């Protein structure tokens, strides 16, 4: 049945390709409407992708996007919308920074300690939403949005000098982390350094695929997402699954900020990147919750981010990239649903046609089947 496999690849690729094409065209229209050349900005940005220093920036940025998007995707796979990845990773990064500044163990212990701190902080924060949903029926969407706001306030509170904060000029920081917790980068010569934790992102992607596709737990999780009622009847405890998925999502989210924290900034300051959790939602959507798809989507996003500043030097607004990201998300939602329905109908038709032609697996009654026509 290789035919149907090819079919699945076609369907998997058709959605994103259509979405990207539509987004490019719409962005070009926006450019034309503002009286600009609709092609040159893209040419400039493509050119940027060829420079090795930009490439390093893209990979570094993409690693964080990737982890955040994985966290969102775990929720998506079972119809949970964890909007709280943003709060979870920021809070987790801050806790890791604080622990890293105060504890000073040998690197072999310090690094796992920091990773675990981030994992547990993220899981704790998302777990609040999970518990609320399971015990009180509170929508996880509402709960995680609220928790994002609370996380922001909590971070501001912890920046106070009498709590964990250290003022550096006008900047709020958590103080410099001990060097045993720093993770060396991969030296790319003049192009710069790739964060060491990029490898963690890759490992997480592989782990995500294995857990979802090759374990009983992953099957239960996917079944819950595909049909809650069928999953319950198959023996999945819906509440436990909601809570587990929320905790897992938060745990991964907690790691999203670590590549830059342990690889570059070594402190949680006002300059620490925000909004990665929200971008992760769009990236997970574009990547269709698949680890490979998300990787491409994360790289695409990072490219738009890192190549767009160049536009300012050529009389274009770099916000073109942001417009484009928005348009991609919009077209993704529409095109995926359309492709999904089209694919289902197409397959039903093909199955009908194959059956009518007598291509039945283990054909005992083939003759009877054909005789009716």
């Amino acid at each position: 049945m290789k035919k149907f496999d090819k079919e699945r690849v076609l369907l998997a690729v058709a959605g994103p390709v259509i979405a990207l094409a539509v987004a490019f065209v719409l962005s070009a229209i926006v450019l034309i409407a503002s009286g600009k050349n609709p092609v040159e900005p893209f040419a400039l940005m493509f050119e940027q992708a060829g420079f090795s220093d930009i490439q390093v920036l893209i990979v570094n940025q993409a690693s964080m996007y990737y982890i955040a998007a994985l966290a969102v995707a775990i929720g998506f796979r079972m119809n949970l919308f964890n909007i709280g990845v943003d709060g979870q990773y920021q809070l987790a990064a801050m806790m890791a920074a604080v622990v890293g500044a105060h504890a000073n163990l040998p690197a072999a212990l310090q690094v796992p300690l920091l990773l675990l701190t981030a994992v547990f902080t993220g899981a704790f924060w998302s777990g609040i939403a999970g518990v609320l949903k399971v015990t009180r029926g509170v929508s996880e969407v509402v709960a995680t949005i609220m928790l994002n706001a609370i996380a922001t306030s909590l971070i501001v509170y912890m920046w106070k000098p009498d709590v964990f904060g250290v003022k550096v000029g006008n900047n709020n920081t958590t103080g410099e982390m001990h060097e045993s917790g720093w993770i060396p980068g991969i030296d790319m010569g003049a192009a710069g350094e790739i964060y060491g934790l990029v490898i963690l992102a890759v490992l997480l992607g592989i782990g995500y695929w294995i857990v979802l596709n090759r374990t009983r737990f992953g099957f239960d999780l996917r079944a819950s997402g595909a049909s809650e009622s069928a999953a319950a009847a198959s023996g999945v405890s819906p509440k436990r699954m909601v809570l587990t998925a929320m905790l897992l999502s938060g745990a991964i989210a907690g790691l999203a900020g670590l590549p830059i924290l342990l690889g570059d900034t070594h402190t949680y300051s006002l300059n620490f990147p925000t909004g990665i959790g929200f971008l992760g939602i769009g990236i997970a959507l574009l990547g269709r919750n698949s680890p490979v798809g998300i990787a491409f989507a994360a790289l695409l996003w990072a490219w738009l981010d890192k190549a767009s500043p160049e536009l300012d030097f050529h009389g274009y607004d770099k916000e073109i990239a942001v417009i484009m990201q928005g348009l991609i998300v919009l077209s993704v939602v529409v095109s995926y649903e359309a492709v999904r329905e089209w694919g289902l109908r197409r397959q039903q038709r093909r199955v009908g046609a194959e059956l009518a032609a007598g291509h039945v697996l283990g054909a005992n009654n083939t003759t009877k089947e054909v005789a009716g026509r």
Partner: protein
Amino acid sequence: MCVINASSSPPAGAAVHGQATAVELAGITKRFPGVVANHDIHLTVRKGTVHALVGENGAGKSTLMKILYGMQKPDEGTIAIHGEKVSFSSPADAIVRGIGMVHQHFMLADNLTVLENVVLGSEKLYGIGAKARRKIKELSERYGLGVRPDVLVEELGVAARQRVEILKVLYRGATTLILDEPTAVLVPQEVDALFDNLRELKAEGLSVIFISHKLGEVLSVADEITVIRRGTTVGTAVPAETTPRQLAELMVGSELPTPETAESTVTDRPVIAVDKLRLAAPGGKALLDDISFTIHEGEVLGIAGVEGNGQTELVDALIGLRHADSGVIRLADQEITSWATRKRREQGIGYIPEDRHRHGLLLEAPLWENRILGHVTERPNAKGVWLDPKGAQEDTRRIVTEYDVRTPGIDVTAASLSGGNQQKLIVGREMSHKPRFLIAAHPTRGVDVGAQAAIWDHIREARREGLAVLLISADLDELIGLSDTLRVIYDGKLVADADPATITPEELGTAMTGAAEGHLEHEETPETPADASTSAESPEDEAR
């Protein structure tokens, strides 16, 4: 005896009778993304007759009626109403032309009165006050519908709701009524009452298109029968000259299977024992009350009852989707009352759910993943905590072959199979894990006749090998034919029991309305119920 016209001749045949044609469909073809499409359909309904449209589930009856009711446009072919060619683009067009549809699932608002339900959407016709009430009363009397305009719909039984639906259609001026499987929700006495109503309609010159796959009913009520198979009309017949067997052969191209089991295989070793099970709704109303029964190895216990009397809750309690408020469930010698669903399934409870799309399948997942569903912890689907896709795929191929699931492969989604093939996959999956106890809720609902026979065979075979089965079905023939013991559920209680060897569907039907209790004895002179319409009022329908 030649009762069957070739499919090309009906238009000519109609003219012979010299009666005006109410509806004529000619050469209707509908290409449809799915397994069955309509292909070259011819259907002629004469004025003042009941015309039955029969065919297996999935043969294309519903599609055809959707075309006639303006819900879908045919790709080819013509529709003529009273000799005039028409083209419908919406049900509103069809209603204007006097076509009315009574859906299988009623479209009534429970919290409104009958009057309000009837005028809803047609306020312009006779207003919403006295004039409308007069019209409703007049229609009700004229056709013997016995509809009271000021009762709340939620107080009505299923049969009464159906009559409200019919009145709703008449109120809008329908002269041709389409009834989609109207008897599916009724007990035999209510069916008789409905048929009386249909005869009244016919006497007043209205035409009725009666869709069904129950041949006995069709032969008793229809003036003419059109048989549809694999999306095309394969012939017409006149009831007086036709036997159910001939009709069945026309429908499926083969003989109708019977569900009768040969000899009893019941043993004295109990497999599942339920004792004083009680389950209450959040408001405190008992959904299940004092349910006790024991099923032995090799025994099929059939539960008869009008839908919504606690069957769903009973199944949920047995599979562990809901936990009983009190009472004890034992599997062999273990108490399983507090076990979770997964443990129950692992320990040998098989489950053929009532609604396979909601509870039995992942529609957009490939067949082999559906084979894993419900048995993810068991071999050949898993080794330890790891899935074993290879093992599952191999076993899916085996099930597809052994259970005759018609599919081109195991990588297609479950949604692309027809209902019967989906059901065969589910039956195959459940049987593959050698259950000790099988919950079979409507195991052949929506399944074509061939698959039905196959499913019955599998249940019978497993029963011979010592399987205990709880069978819930709306098909009384299936219940009587397959069961070793029969119980009747009414309002959450098991109110009566019967011996399937002697009981008739009519007697069972009486008990299903709550009119009879205790042990039902077959009476040699089957009395016709004195007032079928009163007994028809009683069953409560909680489903809506």
